[in-house]
């Protein structure tokens, strides 16, 4: 980590996400993740796909430092999550990670602009600056004319775009989206995915959980999960071009690299 901070060339820049041997067992003996290795380089756009209950959301919790693994190591933007206190993890999320949820989670009764500005509340920026950046982010997602609208005055697709604006307003190193189109009709979902592609082209590193195979197929990289294991990883195709085969991608799961039956809806 110290070398990475001293030397700037991109080759030595740490990956945005590095998981190795991550296992998550819930009390009661449910193992939601069993030894996941995953590396995400800066500028990547990847889909995390898998059948229901396979551990996708659990993986996202751990990558987003909302939860800690029972075993294995998690390094986000060069910070070892296990070594950080809850306070520092909060700061890590405030500075480096943005979340988009299937259910939007906009604060009711608050204007779109204020909802987006809320994404910067814990960043230490003064209020006026937060609102200014929120306005810019809303314009970026194409809702410059809906600043004063409150959530109940927006369509589902618009709400999700407000939520995306809230997630990116702090310019995080990593944007995590759990089924961002899950609650939307196909047209709105399409628009949201287009926005995600655009944000990635502008440099954002984004991981999207999705059930939709079509959506997943259009993303540069797919990570398939099944029973808590990564069963297929099309590998990073980021600016580094390190090609396929992330370490341990299909380990112990040989026969299942073919199209997955459980993945259809």
């Amino acid at each position: 980590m110290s070398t990475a901070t001293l030397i700037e060339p991109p080759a030595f820049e740490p990956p945005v996400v590095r998981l190795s041997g991550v296992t998550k067992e819930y009390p009661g003996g449910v193992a939601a993740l069993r030894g996941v290795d995953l590396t995400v380089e800066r500028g990547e756009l990847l889909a995390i796909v898998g059948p229901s209950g396979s551990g996708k959301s659990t993986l996202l919790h751990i990558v987003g430092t909302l939860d800690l693994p029972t075993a294995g190591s998690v390094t986000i933007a060069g910070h070892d999550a296990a070594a950080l206190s809850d306070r520092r993890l909060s700061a890590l999320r405030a500075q480096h990670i943005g979340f988009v949820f299937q259910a939007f989670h906009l604060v009711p009764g608050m204007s779109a602009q204020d909802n987006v500005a809320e994404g910067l509340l814990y960043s230490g920026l003064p209020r006026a600056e937060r609102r200014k950046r929120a306005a810019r982010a809303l314009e970026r997602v194409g809702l410059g004319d809906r600043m004063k609208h409150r959530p109940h005055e927006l369509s589902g697709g618009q709400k999700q775009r407000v939520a995306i604006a809230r997630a990116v307003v702090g310019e995080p190193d990593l944007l995590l989206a759990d089924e961002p189109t899950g609650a939307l009709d196909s047209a709105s979902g399409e628009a949201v995915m287009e926005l995600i592609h655009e944000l990635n082209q502008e440099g954002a590193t984004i991981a999207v959980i999705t059930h939709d195979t079509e959506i997943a197929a259009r993303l540069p990289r797919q990570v398939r999960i099944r029973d808590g294991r990564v069963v297929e990883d099309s590998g990073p195709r980021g600016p580094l071009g390190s090609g396929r085969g992330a370490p341990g991608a299909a380990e112990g799961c040989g026969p299942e690299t073919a199209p997955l039956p459980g993945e259809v809806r």
Partner: protein
Amino acid sequence: MSGRPVLRPARLGPRDILHTGASGMRSRPMRVVLSALGIAIGIATMIAVVGISASSKEQLLRELDKLGTNMLVVTPGTDLLTGKSVPMPKDAAGRVARITGVQHVGATGSVPATVRRSEKIPDTITGGIQVQAATDELLTTLRGTMRTGTFLNSATGKYPSVVLGDVAAGRLGITSPGQRVFIGGQYFTVLGILDPLPLAPDIARSALVGWDVATGRLGFDGRPTAVYERSADASVDRVHDLIPRTVSPRTPRDVGVSDPSAGLQAKAATEGAFSSLLLGLGGVALLVGGVGVANTMIISVLERRYEIGLRRSIGATRGQIRGQFVTESLLLSGLGGAAGIVLGGAATAVYAVSSGIPWVIPAWAVAGGFGATLAIGTVAGLYPAVRASRLSPTLALHSA
């Protein structure tokens, strides 16, 4: 740039803390009102209890201020051996008047006669009204006022004319000057009726006649039974010491000197002591209000699990979540406290206006009441806030 070595959560400014604390209240105004109500009632009760007693005390103090505490009454003492009252000399008032520092002297003396509405009423029915001789300066010395008519003066005091105390006038059925009453075998014309005299309450039940008329026509022995004296504030103590020797140089111990304002002062002190029972009732209401706020807060935390998860995912620390809910609790109870102070003040005002006394709310009661609400808000909010801060941040990712 990615491996920034320091990760330190940013501090929220006071305005942002207030903003997060108020975020839950905006969407549910009715609940805010209802949960603040209990505290409002408690504080209102306490403020009203303290306010009403403070107002009553203020009223007495103002009265005392008007009447002054610089008046002394000289009365016949009792002989230590015989236990009998020792009459004062006829010139007692004149002697007191010669003491340096004495400004006004008035006297009354008991007249052995009865007063009746007319001669047709038997003289055994006195109605408890005393006939007393009075000097001209009595009213000035007592700082008394006339309800109607005029007081005795050097001219009218020589003729059969009378001034009635307010109780005496009521018992005799006299309402205006010019009417006549029957005293000691002849009719006296009523000159006026007195207002109540807080410093000499027995005069209210008296019929006052001039000194000369009393001695000349009613068999009065000319010995005063009470001499009222007013001096400069600074010389009250000295005058107090000099009076017995001046009035009765040989037996100074047979002279009684008292300060009638002392009783009023004691009364003011007891008025200021409020009913602890009512205050306790207010305390119970306050406690119930606090429980109501705690209950509201627990529900608020349950309802807003997703918002809490969201805030944690945005970067709120546990401490900041705790702060948000303690702030909300403080706002709720503070609102109730402020409303209670206004309500209690209004109740006191209504009481004060309806009983014609000044309106006083002690600052310490307001500060204490508000302090109590803040303490209650903190206690009521602490447990829900701790619960909120311990909720798993992954909650936000579950679909609602």
